[in-house]
């Protein structure tokens, strides 16, 4: 009997994920049309008011594209056999630096002190580039969203024996001890994060954990409590 219910619930879950995937893919075509039209119109627009409007439309549309991509990733991740990863050996330090680069301005705009420390000797890891970029971007976006002006955010890459550890450390709003174990749960958002930002919907850390698990690595979080910052450590195997 329990096997019957287990099978049925899995079937329903698969159908739900299949539905999300189809809908999300359908969204991508009109989103692409808006993106490409904005780009074309922007290239020829001289009126500064219209230019600003088009830029805003483009930025909002890009947010929708990111959201759609995340939904597809969540649905595909739940059907783990579907999501295929392409692993390649590459420099982790280069990847971290390149991913962090566009964030420098974003942190600067918010008056947050941002630094990236990588070791002199390169570290090679076998990774799915796009997905590790997603993990790093998610951690950096969270650090930016949940830190007030005047605070610090730092990224440190270190080699610890057979592993590489990427740490993203902030002194932002922190996480309460009760909410800490739930932080990687799908659609979970802590009370303080909800108060600070209403836009997130709690999938980037869930996906990050799934991605790192597929890399046979680990992702962990620590925080001394509310208003005491947070530290995320991503551990990946080093390729010698």
């Amino acid at each position, binding site marked *: 009997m329990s096997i019957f219910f287990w099978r049925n619930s899995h079937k329903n879950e698969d159908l739900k994920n299949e539905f999300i995937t189809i809908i999300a893919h359908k969204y991508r075509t009109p989103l692409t*049309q808006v*993106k490409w039209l904005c780009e074309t119109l922007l290239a020829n627009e001289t009126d500064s008011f219209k230019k600003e409007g088009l830029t805003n439309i483009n930025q909002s549309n890009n947010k929708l594209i990111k959201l759609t*991509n995340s939904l597809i990733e969540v649905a595909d991740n739940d059907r783990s056999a*579907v999501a295929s990863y392409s692993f390649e050996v590459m420099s982790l330090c280069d990847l971290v630096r390149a991913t962090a680069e566009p964030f420098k301005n974003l942190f600067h705009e918010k008056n947050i002190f941002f630094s990236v420390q990588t070791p002199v000797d390169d570290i090679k890891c076998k990774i799915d580039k796009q997905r590790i970029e997603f993990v790093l971007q998610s951690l950096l976006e969270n650090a930016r969203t949940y830190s007030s002006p005047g605070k610090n955010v730092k990224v440190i890459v270190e080699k610890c024996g057979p592993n590489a550890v990427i740490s993203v450390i902030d002194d932002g709003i922190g996480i309460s001890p009760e909410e800490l174990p739930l932080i990687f749960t799908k659609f979970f958002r802590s009370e303080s994060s909800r108060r600070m930002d209403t836009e997130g919907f709690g999938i980037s850390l869930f996906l990050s954990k799934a991605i790192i698990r597929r890399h046979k690595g680990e992702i962990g979080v620590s925080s001394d409590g509310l208003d005491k910052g947070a530290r995320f450590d991503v551990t990946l195997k080093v390729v010698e």
Partner: protein
Amino acid sequence: METSLRKKVLWVEDDALLGKILGEAIAVQGFDLKLAVTGAEAISILDDFTPDVIMVDLYLPGDMNGYDVLEKISHNPKLKNIPTIILSNFGKGERFGKSHPVIPTKYLLKADVTIGQIIETLQELCAH
């Protein structure tokens, strides 16, 4: 630019608006572009048009999808060395875009790339 000197591109895309927006941008950049709506139409165009780059969508109307078009090209000695691009809204590793024995030179997710990036990719592949 002389027609014969212009780099030739065959693009298989069934969405009329995307075809118009990107098609015009590609043409403005000096490429000689042929647009096909189905895989069968693309194969028929290739009878007397040898492009420098072939770009395909994956999900197409008719009996052939983008991978079928690439597979057919890979068996044609005249065409098999032409660089190919998959330009689709199914990402690499997602459902329809899942791994396939025929590997394109480049794989681009439409919603993630700008027209400028597509044109840069075409220029890069035509330069080789």
